[in-house]
């Protein structure tokens, strides 16, 4: 069928089953927005900043398991997408970004709003295309979606010059992709699975160290089955929070810098570490040589380049995790029927004892509201409900990890690898677009909120109501924590104040509901009202700025050097 390139972009999105895209128009993408005006089944959500559009697409992707789509114009529109693209790259979020580009004959001339966005993003995309010929548009878009969601998920970019959007083609959407160099593993070597199962059966103190790849692979049911078959304890990284039901007796928290002692000790003392779609990130491992020092390592991953990147894998298993975990459970069950182990009951008892002995702690000293009760109250108010959490980055994010309890996959959406402040609000809007029936709550910091808070307008006007709970300590809190602990309390350029802006009034200015909480007495009632109000709401919880997040393993230290809340005054000098 004859049509313009711009229409072809929309027909391609429709053919890919895209229901929602996020973006902002501008000069070089105008023809595509004109095509949107002509009609499409894809809903367009108008963001207030391209970074917001990108994070919305990420939130949409993480909540739904589908590819997120963001649209922007050339130049500044495209560069504003760089942060979400980098974020999606680090956290393996499937994302297709479509950017307008200046007309083909102007490329390379420093034309108005020209920038080499394919060049700029090379280190942070799986692949990118600058479409020079309108005839290539269908096959490029087909390939873009294919690359984004196959193998290890991640972002791709399609840059389309304005004249290509305006040119005419005979549109036919290809069934097949033509990518001779893109062959992610489709199946696992069963021999490797068998070896891994034998190692599991022989282990006395195994530990499943689960990463975000498990969610991306939609392998949570298979993970649960494996854990239950082998009675295997599970720790989930920040990126994998919600991949395993957190009320399950086999869940033992979250490893890493702010993980509880029992999670980190579990990894430290295990004899078999099974990494499941996890990448031995430094925020998880601390000092690498002291991470699970006595363990044999089984590494399950779709990306062979992750195997042995940081920690040598004794038993590497490369393949799609859904299949890998299902086969591993089957093999383990077969071994058990022959009378083999693992016999983990003593180990599980030990882990449970540590959990009893070293619970998460804080004290309610002083008059000010503490941040931890904000999270605890949110959890109590929403227990058992269909809630999706998003967060910014910093102390509040770590408290959210510690105190919120996730039962179902894809209900905790956060920026892990890149640590992008400002991720929370737009990601929540994207999650709401993906799952309108769920209550979406963004736990944010005051610093984070001020980076992308203008997307409240998008939330209100696009009828994508979210509840933003600002853990407002008036500071860049995590930076303050480091300055307090490692820079002899020399506070440098971190004071934002509790009161500027007045978040409740700012929310009202955007047409949202605004609330302020200054004491624990008001906490439950106000949060309940915000959750109940059915429209976009901001709850400004003004908390004690001196509260630090514990436990903490100082950067580069070993798990056993973990600093507990009660030892917070005796932090060793760096």
């Amino acid at each position, binding site marked *: 069928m004859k049509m313009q390139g711009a229409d072809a972009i929309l027909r391609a999105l429709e053919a890919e089953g895209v229901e929602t895209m996020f973006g902002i128009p501008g000069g070089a993408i105008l023809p595509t927005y004109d095509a949107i005006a002509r009609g499409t089944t894809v809903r367009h959500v108008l963001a207030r900043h391209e970074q917001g559009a990108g994070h919305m697409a990420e939130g949409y992707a993480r909540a739904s398991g589908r590819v997120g789509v963001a649209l922007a114009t050339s130049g500044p529109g495209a560069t504003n997408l760089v942060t979400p693209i980098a974020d999606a790259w680090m956290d393996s979020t499937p994302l297709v970004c479509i950017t307008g580009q200046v007309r083909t004959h102007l490329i390379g001339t420093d034309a108005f709003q020209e920038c080499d966005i*394919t*060049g700029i993003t*090379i*280190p942070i995309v*799986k*692949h*990118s295309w*600058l479409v020079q010929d309108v005839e290539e548009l269908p096959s490029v878009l087909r390939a873009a979606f294919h*690359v984004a969601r196959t*193998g*290890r998920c991640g972002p791709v970019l399609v840059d389309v010059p304005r004249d290509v959007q305006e040119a005419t083609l005979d549109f036919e959407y290809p069934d097949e992709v033509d*990518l*001779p*160099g*893109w*062959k992610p593993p489709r199946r696992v070597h069963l021999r490797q699975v068998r070896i891994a199962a034998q190692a599991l059966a022989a282990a006395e103190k195994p530990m499943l160290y689960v990463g975000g790849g498990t969610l991306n692979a939609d392998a949570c049911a298979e993970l649960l089955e494996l854990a239950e078959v082998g009675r295997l304890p599970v720790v989930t990284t920040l990126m994998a929070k919600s991949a395993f039901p957190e009320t399950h007796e086999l869940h033992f928290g979250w490893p890493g810098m702010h993980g509880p002692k029992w999670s980190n000790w579990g990894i430290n003392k295990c004899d078999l570490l099974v990494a499941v779609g996890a990448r031995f990130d430094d925020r998880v491992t601390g000092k690498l040589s002291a991470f699970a020092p006595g363990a044999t390592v089984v590494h399950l991953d779709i*990306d*062979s*380049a992750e*195997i*042995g*990147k940081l920690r040598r894998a004794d038993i590497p298993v490369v393949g799609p995790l859904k299949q890998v975990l299902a086969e591993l459970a089957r093999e383990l069950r077969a071994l058990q029927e022959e009378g083999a182990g693992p016999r983990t009951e003593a180990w599980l008892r030990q882990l449970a004892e540590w959990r009893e002995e070293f619970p998460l702690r804080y004290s309610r000293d002083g008059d000010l509201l503490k941040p931890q009760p904000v999270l605890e109250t949110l959890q109590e108010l929403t227990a058992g409900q269909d809630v999706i959490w998003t967060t910014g980055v910093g102390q509040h994010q770590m408290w959210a990890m510690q105190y919120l309890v996730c039962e179902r996959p894809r209900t905790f959406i956060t920026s892990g690898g890149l640590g992008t402040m400002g991720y929370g609000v737009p990601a929540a809007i994207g999650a709401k677009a993906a799952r309108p029936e769920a209550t979406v709550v963004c736990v944010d910091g005051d610093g984070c909120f001020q980076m992308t808070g203008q997307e409240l307008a998008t939330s209100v006007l696009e009828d994508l109501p979210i509840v933003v709970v600002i853990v407002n300590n008036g500071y860049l809190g995590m930076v303050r924590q480091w300055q307090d602990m490692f820079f002899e309390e020399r506070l440098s350029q971190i004071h934002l104040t509790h009161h500027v802006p007045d978040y409740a009034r700012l929310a009202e200015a955007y047409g949202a509901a605004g609330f302020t909480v200054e004491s624990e007495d008001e906490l439950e009632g106000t949060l309940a009202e915000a959750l109940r109000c059915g429209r976009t709401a901001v709850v400004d919880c003004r908390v004690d700025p001196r509260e630090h997040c514990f436990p903490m393993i100082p950067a580069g230290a070993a798990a056993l050097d973990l600093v507990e809340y009660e030892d917070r005054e005796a932090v060793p000098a760096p």
Partner: protein
Amino acid sequence: MKHTLSVLVENKPGALMRISSMFARRGFNIESLAVGPTERPDVSRITLRVDCEQHPLEQIEKQMHKLVNVLRVSELEPGEAVERELALLKVSAGPGRRGELIALAHAFNARVADLGADAIVFEVVGHPEEIDAFEELVRPHGLQELVRTGRIGLGRASVGSQRSRKQHVLR
């Protein structure tokens, strides 16, 4: 330890940039790099020389495999590959020194590509180590300028089926 990697890539814009950018961001050093066409117009071959241990080498290969334009990565093992390089050397040579230099060049199968009043440009093709040796020999005469293509290589025909570690295969 030095390794030679032979990489087949789709002949698409930006393919070389994607590879070199990956090396830069992962902190791998490229010692030499040569790109050129192959027997297929849609495929180019990149010959890379890297200096690293076995573990980083595996990382390099795996990271390269993830690039969409990369079709195949194989290591050219010494002894199982033919490796060549071309160099042009401009050497100071007044009329009195020409004979000596040309005799020297003869021993290395170097050709006189251009002859001037005070200098000779030699063209030498060979194994990179032979070129190193020739370079050292002419240096005392006054090596004015030097350019080398970087090595290229192919698996030996006599070794039989390519023993290279094949990962991505062409259609």
